[in-house]
């Protein structure tokens, strides 16, 4: 057998997909920060979390990543994508770039993604559940109904989120997320 026929194969990179995911993580991170100021429900969810709460959401094994945490004065802040020696209290690991693509192109919601074993959560379970609820609300604000329906488990009813609150909140979140 000629072993040279069967060379070693180094893994290539999926640059475009990684860039897309990095942008989506940035948008979601900024939107969480904005939603914590705009939306009452998100504010309440964050208030229940520990003071040192720090979320790391990242794509295994080489990123990209997103850090969102509570500051000393209790405000929610998007801390960027670089690890600056943070000690996350909740780590959400997405198992592969493809799994992240399914999640961030809204082909799969967070609940389905978890059920299909594409996410690994390291941290307190109540914190993880709270974060999923926050992500759902943020997605409802960020996305048009037709897409958000795919991304969340249950789209909120009229009684849970009236259109006035939704559209007004959406404008505020977009403005706050994209202005520095």
């Amino acid at each position: 057998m000629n072993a040279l026929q069967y060379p070693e194969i180094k893994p290539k990179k999926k640059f475009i997909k990684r860039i897309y995911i990095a942008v989506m993580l940035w948008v979601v991170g900024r939107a969480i920060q904005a939603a914590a100021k705009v939306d009452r429900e998100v504010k309440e969810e964050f208030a229940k979390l520990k003071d040192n709460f720090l979320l790391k959401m990242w794509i295994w094994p080489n990123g990209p990543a997103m850090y969102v945490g509570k500051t000393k004065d209790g405000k929610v802040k998007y801390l960027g994508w670089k690890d600056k020696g943070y000690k996350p209290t909740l780590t959400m690991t997405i198992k592969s770039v493809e799994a992240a693509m399914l999640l961030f192109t809204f082909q799969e919601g967070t609940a389905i993604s978890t059920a299909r074993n594409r996410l690994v959560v390291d941290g307190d379970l109540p914190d993880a559940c709270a974060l999923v609820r926050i992500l759902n609300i943020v997605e409802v604000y960020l996305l048009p109904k037709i897409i958000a329906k795919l991304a969340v488990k249950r789209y909120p009813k009229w009684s849970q989120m009236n259109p006035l609150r939704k559209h007004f909140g959406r404008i505020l979140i977009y403005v706050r997320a994209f202005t520095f």
Partner: protein
Amino acid sequence: MIPYNFTFLSHPKICSGLKALEHIPFELESLNARKPLVITSARWAKKGLAKTLTKALYDSNITIGALFTNAPNYPSVTIINELSKLYRDRGCDSIIALGSGGIAHIAKAVNMVVSLKTDILQCTDLTISSPLKPLICVPTADCEGGEMAAVAYYERFEKQSDFLYPDVIVIDSRITRHATSQEIANCALTSLAHAIEACGIVAPNPINDAYAHTALSFIYQYFPKTIKKPCYKDGSVAIVNAAACADTAFSNAPQGIVHTLAQAIALDTNLQPGIVMGILLRYSLAAKLHAKGGIRPELLLALAGIDTYAKTPEKDRQKAAYDYLTKCIDATCNYVPSTLKGLHIPHYKLKEYARLAAAKNKQHKENEYMALLEKSFEGK
């Protein structure tokens, strides 16, 4: 009554469905491995499966030690030794078997050689007492039975050990949809025979029954459509899942009369064991139906669901289960003859097969094997 006297082991983790291949890097790292040797055949490489697997490993820390694309269907000592050398030369730490049948058994045999650091022929007599190197099985839909079980076939040997289970089984439609109708028939019939024999034993094991019933249910639901259209994604994934479940059930039950005879015939004739099992199973079921114990009525529940099971009177359940099973076997009529005579097996050989089977599996007597062979030969 709770049948609490049983043992059951199912080691492999099954990753099945959409983008299942992309789970491989994470699973490999969880097993502390980063450099797998990938074994596949020229046929699958030509169909682009090796490329699909390679792409699934992009953006990870996994380097493929060697992508061997010339694996034959027969696990000979020569190929096992050559691949073991390749594994060591490249400093690999795990194995990925991309394909079913011989490929999976070659991978298991190579794993034994590199883990036990010995020759393959000596492995036959050794007792495996510790876990082997990580092995990931990515089966195609041409399973011949045993790929995902705790057994390895190589040359003319059969090695059984709990450590021979693959660590992870990855079932993805991008891999499973390339088999032919004949191969799907072979795979489904093998799984059907293994599942029925696993839950047809004297002291049934409830966990094993769950696996066997799942296999039966998948086959009954998806087999008729998949055999007509082998590229049907959901169907091919379901058939391979059925094979995985049936293999686990098979590993936890004593070998049955159909499996033993089919192996003896396949070894001598080079026929696919599934085809022989399909023929033998029909007559074995008919014989069982008229025997004292009969067929387990729970099979009807697995095949037809709770509604039909509840509607069917208790005394008719065995017959109904038999009818459902023969319907499944009949779906293969274009690919599998109904008698052993149709396979051009000479009648004088039957005695030899019965003797071989009786020597291998002493749970049944030679005349029992012979009776089944005689019935299956002419179809009486």
